[in-house]
């Protein structure tokens, strides 16, 4: 959970004095959650980092610790994205134009490349192949597919942005940087497909008043995507 939500232990302030700040932090975190679509408010009250997430009906997959944990975290997200776009191209939605198909095929290839790169880079430390669960997405409908694509891309951007500071190795940080901007390009193009020539490509719904994208911690991201994967992914030690 967002570190801002952890109780202050060294301030010496009374409960009543800290609550307005904590409440605001909580609401801010909840706002982030809502924008990603699937995080229940109730779960935001728990310490997600120390307990496995409920709801999966498969194995438990632990991402590991340190930089390896962060890279496995990225590998897990790329697996989901690659599987999603592979399905989109295998079963195109009704009325998919040639231009849309070209874009979605490009993105599919990028995500497969990211997935295979992380798999190779992690070697025997890589987590297993995950089993996606896209039962909630109607792949025959353009709105549903592009809406899910937007969610995955925005989530990917926020995830990489939030994971950057967890990396200890500069080489790994640079790699994450090389990939996150491509995810951001995807997000902008998908958003422009949904609402062409609008401000949505970098919309006020996702950016803050400083003109910044989101940066979200692994626990919150894993919570947001857990409905899309059958395994239960635990990331309590990512970056630690």
């Amino acid at each position: 959970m967002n570190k801002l939500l952890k109780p202050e232990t060294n301030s010496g302030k009374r409960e009543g004095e800290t609550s307005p700040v904590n409440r605001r932090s909580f609401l801010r975190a909840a706002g982030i959650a809502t924008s990603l679509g699937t995080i229940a408010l109730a779960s935001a009250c728990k310490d997600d980092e120390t307990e496995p997430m409920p709801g999966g009906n498969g194995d438990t997959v632990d991402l590991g610790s340190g930089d390896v944990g962060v890279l496995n975290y990225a590998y897990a997200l790329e697996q989901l994205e690659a599987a999603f776009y592979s399905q989109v191209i295998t079963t195109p939605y009704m009325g998919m134009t040639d231009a849309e198909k070209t874009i979605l095929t490009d993105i599919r290839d990028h995500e497969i490349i990211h997935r295979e790169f992380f798999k190779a880079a992690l070697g025997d430390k890589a987590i297993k192949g995950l089993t996606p669960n896209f039962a909630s997405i109607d792949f025959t409908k353009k709105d549903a597919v592009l809406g899910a694509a937007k969610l995955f891309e925005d989530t990917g951007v926020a995830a990489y942005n939030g994971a950057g500071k967890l990396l200890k190795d500069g080489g790994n940080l640079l790699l994450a940087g090389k990939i996150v901007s491509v995810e951001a390009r995807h997000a902008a193009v998908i958003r422009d497909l949904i609402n062409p020539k609008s401000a949505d490509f970098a919309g006020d719904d996702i950016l803050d008043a400083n003109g910044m994208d989101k940066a979200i911690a692994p626990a919150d991201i894993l919570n947001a995507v857990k409905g899309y994967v059958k395994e239960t992914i635990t990331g309590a030690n990512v970056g630690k």
Partner: protein
Amino acid sequence: MDIFKIIDNFQKIDGDALGRLEYATRRHFMSKVGSKLATVAVPTVFASIVNKAFAQSAGAVDVLNYALTLEFLEDEFYKAGNAAAGLIPATDKTIFTQIGKHETQHVAFLVKALGTKAIAKPSFDFQYGGAFGDVFTNYKTFVTVSSALEDTGVRAYKGQAGALIGDPQILEYALQVHSVEARHAAVVRRLAASVTGNAAMKGWITGKEGAVPAIYAGEDNLTQGGKDLKGLASKTDAAISEAFDEPLTKEAVLAIAGPFIKP
């Protein structure tokens, strides 16, 4: 005086104040306020702590001022472009208004973060010594320069990530701006492809494809993390190059941006 009420009020102006406050520990904050409250106006103390929270190291100050230089450049560019009568077609005005808004926000953020250490705004020559003489009268030129500025911005921020690895909160802010520049770049590249009739130019960078070739040097790299990815997953070189954006050093960026900045 209720310091939490002040923080609350500050957040109404700046929703992310708390995030920055993480950097100065609560203990530090409270002791500093406690010791100076009697003689110094709280907002002044608060501002100095916020500044201190950002500018932890001399290296970070350098990176932030470097970023500020580029954001000043972008901000002034879009202010001029958005104000130029008849330049941007009505259909594309929303996009450039949104981009311009973000660049203004980035400048304001960096100026506030750097406080007294912020550099002064340079004077700019957007005609680039004559190379882009019609930049504010010819939409093709404007979009071309815009796409080049955005892609350069992405490469510039990416190139500084490693320098901020010891300043985690500043690193995170830099990443949060970096991905916004990439969003800008993608949408403007697609506009540029359309306006200039270059179908090879996509939202992502294929090989070294871009409107101003000099700034795409190295974008066709296929080696990542010490591994040659050629042939990975049976994908083309084009797709592999698109999947990774490449950084630029500060020296390379300043060589590109230099002619925009009047001496």
